């Protein structure tokens, strides 16, 4: 019995080695295929399992779809595009290891992702030292600031600051001056809380109550009871769908009549499903992808939004998500830079050329907004990229 086991182990190892050899042969032999030019290699770090999987999965699917489309159309200046995917498992440590692998072993020209802020912040030093351009798909503004220390790093999703500004501006237009905030103590919620606290004053708004809750809390009634006891004219909740849905429901239970504003963290169908009738009347800023049907044809993003939504939904048979859009924008930027890159550069020079190319992108209409990069702005999102959305009868509608 023991012997059989031993043989089995040896056999499995042998097969595994063969398979590994096969993989390296096939990637090494890319140049030997009928395509006359070598493939451009781009690394993709997405959290397709773990806490970030709701974000990482549509990102991976989006990039897969784009690679098929680009290669079917003849690649980039005749070079096929090869994207090497690694699953970070939503872990910053794992992500750091995989980054080194992409740079040292796979010799990629650029990296898109990672999915979450924690992972992105964890690999900034690695890509900076190795001089590899990174286009992150995560929210935290610290990923691209201070820009003097982020020479190699770009990102595509809007930062908390723009989102908060959109909410506060909307309140100012409605002559609101007093607001209560309720935020998760997670890094996402805490980011929103600090930007709301620092920027509310710029819009003549005072925060009269500042409540928090923890991930996993199943009732926010006590915090909302406290808010109810103040003279707040509105509530801002900064969290993702699940617990924001509980906030909406508890406000309804407590028969609070002041409006509820939420962050872009609830920009998915899950929030409407979870909050049910309590979702109605909730207002939040988000990219235009959700409400593409009501975006006017004159909008510069209209065409790309319609196309992406149709392609994605046809291919995967599920509703498109804004997170996939972040990956769309990231890969699009890398591809634009690769298009402008001269032929025959070595890896280091090619990486430099891609970085410079991304920094020169102007008026690129993507999924999350219109981008104009510059040496002082590595997010480059132009005003007007966010739309204020109200949930009416369980449907998203654009507030103009």
């Amino acid at each position, binding site marked *: 019995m023991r012997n059989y086991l031993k043989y089995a182990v040896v056999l499995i190892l042998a097969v595994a080695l063969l398979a590994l050899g096969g993989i390296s042969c096939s990637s090494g032999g890319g140049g030997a295929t009928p395509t006359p030019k070598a493939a451009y290699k781009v690394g993709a770090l997405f959290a397709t399992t773990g806490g970030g999987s*709701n974000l990482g999965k549509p990102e991976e699917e989006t990039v897969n779809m784009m690679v098929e489309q680009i290669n079917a159309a003849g690649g980039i200046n005749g070079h096929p595009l090869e994207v090497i995917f690694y699953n970070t498992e939503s872990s910053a440590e794992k992500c750091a290891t995989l980054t080194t692998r992409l740079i040292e072993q796979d010799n990629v020209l650029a990296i898109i992702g990672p999915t979450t802020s924690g992972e992105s912040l964890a690999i900034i030093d690695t890509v900076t030292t190795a001089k590899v351009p990174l286009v992150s798909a995560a929210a935290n503004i610290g990923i691209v600031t201070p820009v003097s220390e982020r020479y190699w790093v770009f990102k595509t999703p809007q930062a908390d600051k723009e989102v908060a500004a959109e909410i506060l501006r909307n309140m100012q237009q409605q002559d609101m001056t007093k607001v209560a905030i309720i935020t998760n103590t997670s890094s996402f919620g805490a980011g929103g809380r600090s930007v709301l606290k620092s920027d509310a004053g710029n819009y003549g708004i005072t925060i009269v109550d500042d409540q*928090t809750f*923890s991930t996993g809390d199943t009732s926010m*009634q006590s915090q909302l009871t406290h808010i109810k006891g103040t003279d707040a004219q509105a509530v801002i909740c900064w969290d993702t769908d699940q617990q924001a849905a509980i906030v909406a429901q508890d406000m309804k239970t407590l028969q609070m009549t002041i409006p509820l504003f939420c962050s872009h963290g609830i920009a998915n169908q899950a929030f409407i499903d979870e909050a049910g009738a309590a979702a109605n009347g909730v207002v939040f800023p988000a990219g235009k992808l959700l409400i593409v049907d009501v975006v006017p044809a004159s909008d510069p993003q209209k065409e790309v939004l319609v196309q992406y939504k149709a392609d994605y939904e046809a291919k995967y048979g599920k509703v498109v998500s804004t997170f996939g859009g972040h990956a769309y924008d990231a890969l699009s930027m890398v591809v634009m830079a690769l298009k402008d890159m001269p032929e025959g550069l070595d890896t280091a020079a090619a990486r430099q050329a891609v970085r410079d190319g991304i920094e020169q992108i102007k008026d690129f209409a993507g999924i999350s907004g219109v981008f104009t990069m510059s040496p002082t702005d590595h997010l480059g999102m132009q005003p007007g990229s966010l739309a204020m959305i109200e949930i009416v009868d369980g449907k998203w509608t654009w507030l103009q």
Partner: protein
Amino acid sequence: MSTAQFVQYLVSGVTQGSIYALIGLGFTMIYAVTRIINFAQGEFVMLGGMLSFTLAHSLGLPLAPALIISILVASLVGAGMYVLAIRPAKNASVVSLIIITIGAAIFIRGLAGVLWGVDAVRPPVFTGSNSISFLGAYIHPQALWIIGTTVVVTIIVHLFLSYTMVGKALKACAINPVASSLVGINPRTMALIAFVLAAAVGGIGGVVMAPLTLTAYNVGIMLGLKGFVAAAIGGFKSPLAAVFGGLLLGIVESFAVAANWGPFTSAYKDAIALIVLMLILLVRSGKLAEEERAG
């Protein structure tokens, strides 16, 4: 604080506390008979909620059979966990058995994540979702169901342990396993019964709370933690004490938010709850030591 506000904090606290109480009850049942702290207790709650969503929402079954089936399946998982994971390790120390329950929890959670995906879901409410006014405060109808269920389950468990043969055997096993096996009570059967009952109570908690609190594959972690605290306040000895512990925890959490005094914003509510736990354990540890000496 106005009366209405006071009542509102109390109502919220009692609702949350009832949930913690049901989970704490499950912890106590298994601990009393086996001395195992079952860290998969929160997973039974999750299973109850997720199953009721699948049956009542996705498959469109009428509510009552959907709830009963969910609770039965959760109990079966409890039985399966004992038979497949705990009983085979019969000679292992209690610490090893506790670690096995952690493993089982991770396994159940992972399986649920694969089966149901990662999004939170809301099973249908039992009787409407328009809140009811009560002394100037408002209460969700589902919260009344939660509180009512906790009261009924607690009474049933108490009656079961005090007045039925199996219940008395469980109690005997909890008080002195060696002596009870001498009089013909099989401790393994008792342990199996304890696991099934704990899983059933967890499942009941899951189906009754999920329409209000939402549920997802990973809610078991946090709920298990709160239930553990409830059971710890109760000293892991009597089910009634665990229920008291749960209610106390819920009410303290709620009023910790109400206090909102100086730097102590709602961010500190979990810390305040833990401080209460530590104070109680400090007071109790003296008593426990006395009991040990006496016993």
